[in-house]
């Protein structure tokens, strides 16, 4: 009946006893903060991983044929790593063999890369990813050209020393100058710049515009890959379904080429964007499985603290309870009053927890490249859980209050 009054009384208690209330609500607050922050970060990571990470690093509807997985988001054991290193490498021959025999319409690109130092005039750019590949690479990665052109298949075949620069690298080496037609030096040899790629932005705070692409038969290939060997063959299909078919085909073709028996494991790796996310999916599943436990523990602790606070409140206000009973309050009136008060306290704690959780998510977003996004459902769950904890924690103190003998309660100091 006097629910509004009980809510107001609880709020007034919080306002007059700020510090004490803060400590008593800390458990619930932390629990809900956890919930909101972790859910926000995991959800943000999911979006980021799918939209950005995998598709930009590997490419849409694209998979790679490699000796070992190129992107590992899970844990790789020492043993696994050693077995990968014992596998034969992917050769030019392998790449051509697959490209010739695959039936699904696909675009392929042979690919090698390593970190190199590039220079122009007095300027040096260290630790630049130098990639040796085919013109199809630009199509597979959806890299547009800002100025100039892509090198041609003829230039690849002939091993002409030409380069397409990433946007940021071009800025760095040629600040203000037109890079087209100028020569960049790699390991003492000049490479003519024929094009500059469009800006791609960054991923996890790492720039995607610091690269140089050359025909993979250009002289510098011996610095990035041993002769006759590739890092990977990139294969892009028109859609996810066709990609699955092409992957199965590639596996069969490679097994035939290497003469593997049905019982033998494949000694090569096919990885798609989805596959690259497997590790992350495991991590996020673990996080979201462990989270309810963590939240539950802090809520239970928070509930016990609130129960204590309410028991103290009942003792402190014994006389008030006596007065109310003398004036006609029934048991359930007193019960309702204290349960509502407890629920209000706890809900306020949860609301602050929601605020802190959102704050934490925003801090993470500001300090890291993760786009932490607050999930609306987690806010409702957080506040709802807070209220439920308050109600449960309030029942025992409230029922004690409701059963007080009015005569003795009135005599209390």
């Amino acid at each position, binding site marked *: 009946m006097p629910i509004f009054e009980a809510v107001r009384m609880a709020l007034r208690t919080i306002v007059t006893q700020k510090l004490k209330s803060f400590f008593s609500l800390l458990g619930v607050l932390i629990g809900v903060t956890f919930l909101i922050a972790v859910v926000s970060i995991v959800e943000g990571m999911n979006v980021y991983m799918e939209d950005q990470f995998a598709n930009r690093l590997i490419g849409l509807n694209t998979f790679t044929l490699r000796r070992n997985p190129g992107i590992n988001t899970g844990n790789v054991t020492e043993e696994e790593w050693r077995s990968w290193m014992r596998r034969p490498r992917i050769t030019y021959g392998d790449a051509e063999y697959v490209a010739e025999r695959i039936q699904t319409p696909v675009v392929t690109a042979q690919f090698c890369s390593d970190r190199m130092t590039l220079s122009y005039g007095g300027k040096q750019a260290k630790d630049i990813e130098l990639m040796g590949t085919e013109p199809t690479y630009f199509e597979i990665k959806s890299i547009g050209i800002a100025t100039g052109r892509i090198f041609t298949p003829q230039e690849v075949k002939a091993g002409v020393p030409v380069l397409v620069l990433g946007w940021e690298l071009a800025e760095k080496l040629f600040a203000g100058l037109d890079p087209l037609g100028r020569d960049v030096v790699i390991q003492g040899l000049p490479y003519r710049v024929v094009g500059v790629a469009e800006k791609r932005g960054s991923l996890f705070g790492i720039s995607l515009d610091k690269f140089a692409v050359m025909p993979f038969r250009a002289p510098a290939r011996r610095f990035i890959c041993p002769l006759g060997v590739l890092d990977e063959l990139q294969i892009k299909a028109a859609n996810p379904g066709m990609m699955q078919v092409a992957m199965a085909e590639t596996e069969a073709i490679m097994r035939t080429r290497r003469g593997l028996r049905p019982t033998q494991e494949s000694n090569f790796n096919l990885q798609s964007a989805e596959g690259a996310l497997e590790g992350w999916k495991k991590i996020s599943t673990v996080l979201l499985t462990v989270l309810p436990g963590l939240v539950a523990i802090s809520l239970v602790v928070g509930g016990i603290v609130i129960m204590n606070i309410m028991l103290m409140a009942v003792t402190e206000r014994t006389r008030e309870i006596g007065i109310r009973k003398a*004036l*006609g*309050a029934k048991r359930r*009136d007193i019960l309702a009053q204290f349960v509502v008060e407890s629920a209000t306290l706890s809900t306020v704690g949860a609301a602050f927890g929601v605020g802190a959780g959102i704050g934490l998510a925003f801090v993470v977003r500001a300090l890291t490249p993760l786009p932490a996004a607050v999930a609306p459902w987690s806010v409702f769950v957080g506040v709802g859980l807070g209220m439920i904890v308050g109600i449960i924690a309030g029942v025992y103190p409230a029922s004690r209050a409701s059963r007080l003998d*009015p005569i003795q309660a*009135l005599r209390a100091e």
Partner: protein
Amino acid sequence: MSDRVIHVEELVREYPMGGEKVLALRGLTLSIRRNEYVAIMGPSGSGKSTLMNLLGCLDTPSGGDYWLNGQEVSRLTDDALARVRNKEIGFVFQTFNLLPRASALHNVELPLVYAGVGSRERRERAVRALTRVGLQNRMHHRPNELSGGQRQRVAIARALVNEPSLLLADEPTGNLDSTTSEEIMRVFSELHAQGQTIVVVTHEPSIAAHAERVVVLRDGKLDSDTRNRAAA
């Protein structure tokens, strides 16, 4: 019969104390008619507090019967007693027993809250009750902003707001100086003149002198029951 607000018959109340039973009331019979102003007196240990608790429906007797306003209330459950207290009885305590953090108005509204009266009517009736005891200008003050006499007036307003059949006062002037005591007793006399049935439990003869009838208890039994000529 319907004229009797209170009728107790052979009322017994015993308390267990360290394995033994102590008899606080040993068969008390008493009737109080409508619009009577009765003082209950007696030395400590005479059973007057026990009687006051029983009359106020805060407690139930171990034996005997109690009719309040024609209703048998001696065997009711806790919640039923709460309803009776809410409707039939207005309490005035020695220590005022106001809620310290609530305004005078809110204190007076409290019995109406438990009676389930809507907020607008609650406010109107509380204002009327406070006006009746002359506190219309102090409605929004908290108890600690009021003098002792004013606090007791708030308590009286609270006791009257439900229009109870019985106003039950327990040492109402015990915490007040003599001037203020006179003032409060004047309020009681006025209420009595307006038709209110009043029972005052006190050990002070000067307070009892305001009543028209004085009941004296001794050892849990009726000692004397006299008409008071001095009463106006």
